[in-house]
């Protein structure tokens, strides 16, 4: 017979949203269900440029597994991703490309700036480096560090999950959101 599980047997399950349950059906709040589904299946786009990209590779590895948060499928296609993780130094010449990739993402989309260079230019306070990607695209979570430890990246990812959970279905159509995008020159 199979050996009983000795370790990792206190797995935390995601709570089911409260609702009215019956024989074969459950009536609950659509927003809660959609948020639950979205937050546990974020597919990231690793826009990895430098050293933080290597740190991300470590985070995706088995020791600091990022896949257990639902991001098993990491893809470089913006059409199929929810979260763009910008990792590494972005030069001014790379700026329009980052923006282009961001524009190709479908709503709802989030951006995580990983590392000091993506947050604010990092130690490269100089003519070729873009001083933070929030000069060109809106950023949701900043993960500081040079490079941030994988645990820090996971913490940032969990904060993105909280944002996804709390967002609601109407935010992307609201005027406030459109105004914010207009501030970056994005229609």
């Amino acid at each position, binding site marked *: 017979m199979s050996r009983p599980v000795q370790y990792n047997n206190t797995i935390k399950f995601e709570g089911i949203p409260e609702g009215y349950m019956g024989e074969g059906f459950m009536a609950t709040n659509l927003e809660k269900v959609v948020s639950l589904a979205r937050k546990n299946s974020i597919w990231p786009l690793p826009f990895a440029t430098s050293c933080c990209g290597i740190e991300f590779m470590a985070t995706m590895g088995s020791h600091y597994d990022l896949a257990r948060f639902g991001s098993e499928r990491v893809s470089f296609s913006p059409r199929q991703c929810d979260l763009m993780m910008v990792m590494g130094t972005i030069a*001014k*010449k790379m700026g329009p490309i980052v923006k282009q990739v961001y524009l190709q993402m479908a709503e709802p989309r989030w951006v995580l700036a990983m590392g000091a260079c993506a947050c*604010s*230019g990092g130690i490269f*306070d*100089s*003519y*070729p*480096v873009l*001083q933070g990607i929030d000069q060109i695209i809106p950023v949701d979570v900043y993960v500081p560090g040079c490079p941030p430890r994988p645990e820090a990246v996971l913490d940032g990812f969990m904060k993105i999950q909280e944002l996804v959970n709390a967002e609601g279905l109407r935010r992307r159509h609201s005027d406030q959101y459109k105004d914010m995008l207009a501030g970056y020159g994005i229609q």
Partner: protein
Amino acid sequence: MSLTNETIQQKLTEKFGDQLTNWQEPYGMLTFTAPKDLNLKVLQFLYDDAELRFQFLTDLQAVHYPDNKGAELAVVYHLHNLVDNVRIRFKVFADVAKPDVFSATALFSAANWMERETYDFFGVNFVGHPNLIRILNVDEMDYFPMRKEFPVEEQTRVDKDDEMFGR
């Protein structure tokens, strides 16, 4: 007979005489200076000569000497003789007000991108280059970053506290 620095120097002075100056040998690598207009002739001679055979352009870069009035920009060529394993370096000086230097692209294809980079960072105008545009920096940049005239820091930052940075 192996190719020594004395042989190279002798052959060059035979051909060009006093125009080549400032002969030095830092760390054993023969270095000399040529006038700006002769750079292609010197390169061609070093390429074609049966004994010298400097047919590999290792590096092409510039240095900005702001104190050398009239000859601020030095364009430095590093050449390598692959057969005898000998390297030499030669420099040409140009005035920063009119930094025109003949392009070595016709002789060495490697000079193409190296001259573009030198143009991008120092503003040296290579006459005769097929496509002299910026290569590493943003195209809209209107200054030449590696000249020693510009501050190191990015000027558009608004969040740096002057007190903390000693200004």
